[in-house]
């Protein structure tokens, strides 16, 4: 059984059709890169997978390990092992990052029938994960993402992913806004988590990221559907030719 199977997915936002019959299969342990022009529906795909309100699936299904995600609340999807690294991580003043991480981790453990982590265990886990990503633990006392730079917010997303250990992670332009060093740190963070049991969907505009996180499959998304599937060399090809030919095909 594939880890992720999306069939004939149609999604409207504010009455506007954004995804039109999207199909995507991601097997266990695979890394898929999704590339495509601005406005083609990449973030829409990420949001509808995570269950954001207002992203209305009108046809089709999304299965994670065979289970239809569309019937589940966002928190239930997360507990099933889905993680979305946001293109624009939000700031939550007044909710300390530590409290947020701990609440999230324990909520997921609870749903999976595991005991909550004790404070020392939790702190140890966070400190180790933060150190890998070169995140100063002082920052974690602040409100979630409050006063974080663009790059720090992206790193914080990867920290959350490392703690929550999802089965399937969708990274929506996690590379945008990162400097060269941060790009390496974040990529290493992702690569550390790669395993035969974990899959990734990496949305990006830049081939550069794919030098660090080498994909098994590259998918081209245009006008709400996958229009081309290839190996990692497809990303290089796109770099040279752009999306013009695929936009015609999708039309």
């Amino acid at each position, binding site marked *: 059984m594939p880890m992720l199977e999306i069939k004939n997915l149609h999604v409207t936002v504010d009455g506007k059709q954004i995804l039109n019959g999207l199909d995507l299969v991601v097997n266990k342990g695979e890394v898929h890169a999704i590339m495509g022009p601005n406005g083609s529906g990449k973030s829409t795909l990420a949001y509808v997978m995570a269950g954001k309100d207002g992203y209305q699936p009108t046809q089709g299904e999304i299965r994670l390990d065979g289970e239809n995600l569309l019937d589940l609340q966002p*928190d239930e999807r*997360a507990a099933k092992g889905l993680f979305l690294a946001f293109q624009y991580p939000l700031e939550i*003043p007044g*909710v300390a990052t530590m409290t947020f991480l701990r609440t999230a981790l324990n909520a997921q453990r609870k749903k999976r029938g595991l005991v909550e982590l004790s404070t020392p265990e939790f702190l140890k886990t966070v400190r180790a994960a933060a150190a890998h990503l070169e995140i100063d633990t002082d920052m974690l006392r602040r409100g979630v993402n409050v006063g974080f730079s663009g790059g720090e917010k992206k790193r914080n997303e990867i920290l959350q992913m490392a703690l929550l250990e999802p089965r399937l992670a969708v990274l929506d332009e996690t590379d945008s806004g990162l400097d060269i060093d941060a790009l390496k740190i974040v990529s290493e963070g992702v690569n550390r988590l790669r395993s035969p049991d974990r899959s990734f969907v990496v949305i990006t505009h830049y081939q550069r990221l794919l030098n660090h996180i080498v994909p098994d499959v590259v998918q081209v998304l245009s006008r709400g559907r996958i229009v081309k599937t290839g190996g990692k060399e497809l990303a290089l090809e796109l770099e040279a030719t752009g999306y013009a030919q695929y936009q015609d095909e999708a039309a």
Partner: protein
Amino acid sequence: MNANVLSAKTEAELTLAKAYASAKPNLPGDRKIQALREAAFRHFDAQGLPHRRIEEWKYTDLRTLMHDAKPLAGAPSAASRAQAKNAGQLLAAMDARRIVFIDGAFVPELSDLSGLEKGLTIRSMHDALAGGDALITAHFGKVVPSDGDGAIALNTALMTDGALVRVAAGSTVERPVLLVFTASGDKPASVFSRSLVVIEQDARAMLVESHEYKNAYQVNAVLELVVGNEAHVDHVKIFGGVGDAVHISSMMASIGTRARFNDFSFITGGAVVRNQIFMRFDGEGALAGIRGASLLKGKQHADNTLVLDHKVGGCQSREVFKTVLDDESRGVFQGKIIVRPDAQKTDAKMMTQALLLSEDAEADNKPELEIFADDVQCGHGATTGALDEDLKFYLMARGIPEKEAEALLVQAFVGEAIEGIEHAGLRDALLGQVASWLSARV
């Protein structure tokens, strides 16, 4: 003509007038106090309970909200004294000096009066009114004139007991003084409590009032507070308890030169709450922070009304009021800042925010700035809105269930006001109460 006036009276007003007539001979106070009572009663009798045609009471019409008046509370029974042993438990971690009142009456045997810090005096208001006290002569009814407020007049007419607290010049009282007001029994009564607190020059003290009433009690509580020159005072009033009490609270505070005053109102209990604060800067260079948080559900109605008078210049005031409204509750905030002609270099900022957790809840907000000086910084801001759906989604996408996500956001919202409380133990106690209010929602 008389008949006309009478026929316009509500049942509650008639009952209160009768209660005053029969209680009058036994109410504490010398001639002067009796004269004050009489004048206050005549004022009440002419005006009636505050109602919506009086501008300041527009949103909280006591004539319609108080269907009847409960009988005046009597002396607390032995059983109620035994019951009140554990009153104020929620604040146990504060290590405060606990002073207990049952139905407004001071209960010395339940109060911690041992080893009073140097400079601290605590007395029953009943005894002070009955036997006289220099503080009464100096300050009673004079701290900030109430301009004929009907609720305060009714309190003056019927007041029975309360606290008289003094902190002498230069004294620091380390332990917070906790006044716990509790109800005696299951039979609702009317309570008219009256307190006077005088913190003299250069003194330091923290005063916490916890009002823990139940069922249909009707409470009219007045506090007059004098913050002396260069004094540093924290005052916190907790409107707790359960049931559908009516709680009318008035605080009049005068702030001296270069004093620091921090006030916090925390409202979770009561069917109808009116929390009115009249504060006046009487000396230059003082700082005051007036903050509050209200958490309302069911059909609760809470009205925070502030009148801040910058009578002199160079003072700074900060107001932050947060209201969380669930179900069909209603929150009112009225904030008036007056800057008198001589109050140059005034710096006053007021912020009020309402968070609606239900479509049936309502928040009313009326800020007013009356500025008569030209070299001032004054501003106010107000927001009313629901929880941010995008933030909620972000939290839920991390596996946090909806109610818990909402709880985190609500805690963050009220936390912003509660963080202003300097005393860590009290801050934690209030955050704990917010958490239990939220967990009761789930």
